[in-house]
């Protein structure tokens, strides 16, 4: 069981997290791993917090990740990082999209978007922050942000030996293949 690796993707409904984890799990399955993935549907998708959890290894039982267990936390939205940091292994890594989505209490002026989350987390663990949304916009389609994040993720966790471009060719629509491959490569460049 100890060989099982845990990837936690978090963000907000509508950010393309489910597709990101689909790409991820397809690649892992092609590479011969046992894979389980858990996703959230329903109510939360209406602008609420969403997460998908991907676990892979020789043999996986539970589809969900426990507290202190994620080898990597990939956060599509800054504040969400804080909500899920408890799930990170103390030796794990964090990859964050430097992007803010204001939730209802902030929009109506009842609360303020919290500051300094990244600074605090950087003191405690290995954090990579970059602007995936800007990269995706530069490439010409903000929707490729999720694939930029996948690129960063696979590099950070050392899965860059899998042929992700092949996976993309088989999962995204024909006309979006090129832009997504570019997004993947850009994402990989963000992580040393």
């Amino acid at each position, binding site marked *: 069981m100890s060989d099982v690796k845990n990837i936690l993707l978090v963000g907000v*409904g509508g950010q393309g997290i489910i597709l990101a984890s689909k790409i991820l799990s397809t690649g892992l399955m092609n590479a011969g791993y046992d894979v389980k*993935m858990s996703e959230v*549907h329903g109510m939360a998708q209406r*602008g609420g917090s969403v997460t998908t959890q991907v676990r892979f290894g020789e043999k996986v039982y539970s589809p969900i990740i426990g507290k202190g267990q994620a080898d990597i936390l990939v956060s599509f939205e800054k504040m969400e990082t804080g*909500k899920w940091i408890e799930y990170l292994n*103390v030796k794990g890594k964090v990859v964050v999209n430097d992007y803010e989505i204001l939730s*209802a209490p902030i*929009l109506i002026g009842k609360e303020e978007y*919290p500051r300094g989350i990244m600074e605090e987390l950087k003191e405690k663990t290995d954090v990579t922050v970059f602007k995936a949304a800007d990269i995706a916009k530069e490439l010409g389609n903000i929707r490729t942000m999720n694939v930029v994040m996948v690129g960063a993720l696979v590099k950070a966790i050392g899965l860059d030996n899998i042929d992700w471009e092949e996976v993309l060719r088989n999962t995204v629509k024909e006309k979006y293949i090129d832009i997504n491959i570019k997004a993947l490569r850009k994402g990989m460049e963000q992580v040393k």
Partner: protein
Amino acid sequence: MKKFLTGNEAVARGAYEAGVTFASAYPGTPSTEILENIGPYKEDIYAEWAPNEKVALEAAIGASIAGARALAAMKHVGVNVAADPLFTYAYTGVNGGLILVSADDPGMHSSQNEQDNRNYAKFAKVAMVEPSDSQEAKDFVKAALEISEKFDTPVLFRMTTRICHSKGIVEFGEREEVGIKEYEKNIPKYVAIPANGRVLHVKVEERLKKLEEFSNTTELNRIEWNDKKIGIISSGIAYQYAKEVFGDKASYLKLGFTFPLPMKKIKDFADQVKKLYVIEELEPYIEEQIRAAGIDCIGKEVIPRIGELNPDIIAKAILGEERETISFDESKLVSRPPTMCAGCPHRGFFYELSKKKNVMVTGDIGCYTLGSAEPLSAMDTCICMGASISAGHGAQKAFNKHGVDKRVVAVIGDSTFFHTGVTSLLDIAYNRSNTVTVILDNRITGMTGHQENPGTGYTLQGEKVPFIDIPSLCKSIGIENVKTINPLKLDEVSKALDETLASDEPSVIITRWPCVLKKPTPEDIEEFGNEKFVCEVLKGDCKGCRICTKTGCPAIEFDSNIKKAKINEDMCVGCEVCLQACPFDAIEKVGE
């Protein structure tokens, strides 16, 4: 062939492979994708959305009596709606195999309660299977249909959110064409009148004995021997969690067939292990039966009966182990509750309703339940599907009877109206309360992800059909005062509410505008157009009064530094609700 499937996708595949030819369901998280994935097997399986779960199960029962293999699927609370036919089909037994998929929602990810539907199997005296991953979800469909036909019983196919929505690798098989069994008229079996029912009940008890024998011998209930110091009895997702925690440091009795329980196998297992744990999510369903059989075990005294289970809870409860975590003060984080989308047609209606004084709003279940959230807070109750109208009727009658000067507005979605709202409205029409019923017709079943319903003009398998006209329906049952309005036009909404609230007669308002996330049909485009606009705040004119933020639109942000509102152009769809709400004409519409 191997594929990576959710449990729901796997059930659909299982239905295909097992020769199912009839499937009916009403959507409900976490069950919805079962029928959505059966739909495409058009050549082989007839599949439909029923208006509600009772109808879905009854339709499947009809197909089963006719001789076909049939499936009905629903969320856990749907089984409450379908309980009546379930309990009696349990008596008559089947012709073609029948399974009822119940998708429970421990932890209430998307539900109003977390009832444990395993109790239904025991209560209705029908066989039950419980898959623990996607592969089993597929394989158990076939096993369950065979059990159904062999033992002449409907089978409850019990899933939970984590089985439904987790993906795992599934090995495919071929479809088995079982065809249709011969239909024979059999009055003593299928006509459940008291005289027949008395005979059938005896048969049901005999059937349970046979099923228990089967339970003791079937491979669906298997023992995995490892170290015998700890023995674990478990089923469903809880089994995976137990394996995650104990691996091969414990022995397992893994139950896939959970009603009737294999008491003999359980006793044998219990006798051979030193310490026996029953690890199950929610109710002590297995534990109570084991204890009643005189077998001692450890269960709910350590494993919680509230909420969703997970490996961490088990590890802490039994082994006292917890992983180290990174400390972080979460108090500075802001919650992210779900909200109505930018451009949601429900917003304009609730914005106006929230301004009406002295009304009680009986609500219902759907995206529009978000009308109860801040800043709209325009809903007082939400009980179960359909209850808005009937509870509203009861409340209005009670207020009137006791001379309480309060008016009731019942608010219900289109799909929910077809589900059980129609019969409730009949109560109003018949027993005459001056309740105002508002049907929020966004042309689709929104909350569960856009399923067709009787009002949309299309079926699950894509056939174009006549749509049920809600205004005509309301009029035909005896409501004379029926108005259809555009919920994005605030003055129309306000006027309709004022007029109906002033009336002593029953009245219905239908707000008709498509869900902003719906993929428009040709008919939608013809009726509602398809232009794209955005709204913009004129900085110079904005007085910073924040009234626009009271609409609760996620595209509107108030910048407290410059004390002005700002509209996120990526999210805005130009619905113009904020534009009408603004008292200073400081919002304007611009083309894209």
